[in-house]
């Protein structure tokens, strides 16, 4: 197998797919120097390794990649070789345009996918939260990448739908694998810590139970049941407790307005914040702040 590169700017093959920035197969028969420095990742990119052994720095940590491993690098992450060299080997790389990328590293895929909105949210969240996103021994990858290559190179009848659906399948299978990775190492205490951290870091996000369950790789019912058993909380009550705890801290230690606190801690409005706060603590946030001054 040799190298090829399809590029959005130059390659006619990609004309029907404006969201594909680049699709390439890289074959490297001898070490190349100064071509792969550690840099910020520009595009959402899926790497699939076919031959060789690669030692790359992902987000400042050394990772080893062997055949059948997948790395999904996302904007704002860093990637490269510590010495800036590219090792001998063979891999696919597919770079895609993503939309609505925000400061929480959340994003969506464009209109080309047929994913339902709620599925899209959970899938993107799973892909966004896992850093670095590495799938070891992802044997489904070879077939997907080879069919993608075949469809793009041959442009047989119906190839546009096929290409979109293969890429869609890559995304779904990756998200499922991430989800499964979590439940594979099933350890509820660790899972609880992880969920807690995730919620704290994205407190302003309007989490649904489905999204929380997705983070730890469980179905909604199993997740709710296990969390309740382990922590005594339903998922949404746990979230509310975190929101109120954080808002208390903000009320006590900052001067920022009620509305800002409400939004920062994930309430829909200052009204919603005030009612929830009073219901739990007995005080309105205003009085609470006054009392603690």
């Amino acid at each position: 197998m040799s190298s090829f590169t399809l590029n959005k700017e130059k390659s006619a093959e990609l004309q029907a797919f404006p969201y594909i920035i680049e699709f390439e197969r890289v074959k490297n028969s001898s070490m190349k120097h100064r071509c792969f420095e550690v840099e910020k990742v520009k595009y959402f990119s899926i790497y699939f390794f076919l031959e060789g052994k690669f030692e790359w720095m992902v987000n400042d940590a050394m990772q080893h990649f062997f055949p059948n491993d997948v790395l999904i690098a996302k904007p704002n992450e860093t990637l490269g070789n510590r010495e800036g060299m590219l090792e001998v080997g063979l891999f696919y790389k597919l770079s895609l345009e993503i939309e609505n990328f925000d400061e929480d590293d959340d994003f969506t895929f464009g209109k080309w996918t047929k994913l339902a909105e709620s599925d899209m949210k959970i899938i993107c969240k799973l892909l966004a939260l896992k850093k670095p996103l590495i799938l070891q021994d992802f044997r489904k990858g070879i077939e997907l990448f080879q069919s993608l290559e075949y469809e793009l190179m041959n442009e047989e009848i119906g190839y546009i739908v096929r290409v979109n659906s293969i890429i869609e399948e890559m995304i779904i299978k990756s998200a499922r694998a991430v989800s499964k990775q979590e439940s594979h190492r099933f350890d509820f205490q660790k899972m609880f810590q992880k969920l807690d951290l995730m919620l704290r870091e994205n407190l302003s996000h309007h989490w649904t139970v489905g999204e929380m369950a997705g983070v730890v790789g469980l179905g909604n019912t199993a997740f709710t049941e296990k969390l309740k058993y382990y922590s005594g909380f339903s998922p949404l009550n746990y979230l509310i407790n975190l929101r109120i705890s954080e808002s208390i801290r903000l009320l006590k230690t900052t001067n920022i307005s009620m509305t800002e606190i409400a939004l920062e801690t994930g309430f829909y409005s200052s009204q919603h914040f005030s009612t929830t706060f009073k219901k739990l603590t007995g005080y309105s946030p205003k009085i609470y702040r006054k009392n603690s001054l």
Partner: protein
Amino acid sequence: MECVITIEIGTSAAKVVAFDYHGNEIVYKKGSYPTFHPQPDFSEQDPEQVFITVLFVLKSILNDPAFNKKYVVTSICLSSAMHSVLPVDNKGVPLGNAIIWADNRADEIANELKNSSVGKQIYQNTGTPIHAMSPLAKITWIKRQDPKRFEKTSRFISLKEYFIFQLTGEYMIDYSLASATGFFNFNTLAWEEESLKFAGVDKSYFSTPVPIFDSSLKIKDTFIKSLRLLPNTRLIIGSTDGCLATLSSGVLNDRQATISITSSGAVRTVGKECLTDEKGQFFNYLLDKNFFISGGPTNNGGVAFEWATRLLGYVDVTNEFESSFNKILNEVSKVKPGSEGVLFLPYLLGERSPIWNSDARGMFFGLNITHEPKHLIRATIEGIIFEILSIGNAIRKYRSFDYLHVTGSYATHPFWAQLISDIFGMTVSVSNYRQSSNLGAAMVALTSMGVYDNLESAGDLVIKGIDLHPSMDNNKVYDKYHRIFESLTQKLGDEFHEISKLQNND
């Protein structure tokens, strides 16, 4: 019907239990909170989250019509984990997270103090082992290593005191919790000068110490209203988890020791005297003026067992640990006592009592070609209990107990309880009530309210569990293994130090 509410602010969760006046549980609810490890040695908790969690769980019981239509709450009594430190400013606002007992950042400071003559004197006066867990070491650490935070600090309180402050606006601490700080002189029942001097603070940093029965605190009106409590509901300050779990055995004399194995473990005894030996190896916490809870804690209880079952692939990946528990014990119970020659030193997390060596590490010893995973699992459980026997033997030089009471999720399992009985060669009574700290708190509440005359008579409400008797044949076998266990632990001092140095990359 009248009832008391007990609140245990534990290491991983807040547990609230309502009891009637006969000690019967009416309702139990819990709410968990996480521990953060911003650095490997650090263990912290979010004080606001702990407060909100307690409030939430409390509220969900008190506002439930099924409860409040039938019961009237006459008092609320508190229990908590020991040794947490939360610096607050002059308005009572927390300066960062609370540092909990498991935090090891003050290890060096503790070692420095332990080997000094001041340290020995402090131990003699406070009864708290000089160790990183002790607030004495932690507060000294904050003063030395985090001067900015120290400067803003007006008080050092615990998570329980923070809860009390939120609820009442007062800073108050019970004798039990105070006696776990390393700052509290158990003779004078006042803050110890030598400790204050060492840490570089004065007593204005600490709350007012009161007996565990104290009910002078007044819950703020807002909370009385939002919790739907009667205005005259008493808030009884209560005690700590370790003291109350021991109290819940219902026996307050030195003929009995209480063995608790949860993720960690402890051997505790009750006595009229403090148990301060030369080596400073025992803790002494004040339940009441006449009762010292003395004993030794181990880091490596159920946590070592859980580690081994995962390591050896016993835990089904799709299941929680608890659902595999019986299956595992079923298999290992078929292995003969002594695990056919495998010994396990359980020091995965270093060790506190009785060797007090944070460099100690775990080991399987005696492996041969015929051993299977089940032998190693059984050896793990035996090793955990051998360690507890070593603690027990150290205590028996001072207090001659010959009867055991077990509490905690591991120790009360019939397989574990029988092993404890065989390894100690003593009769074991198994507590059949799991929320032992809460039950102890109910005993304190009912005594404080005058329903019982004193803590001994409150012991009447404890329902005795079953007694397990030792097999003396097994005891003889275990005795041989325990000798090797102790001599290995002793011989490996230098090697523990060397290997832990390598693990820490020093």
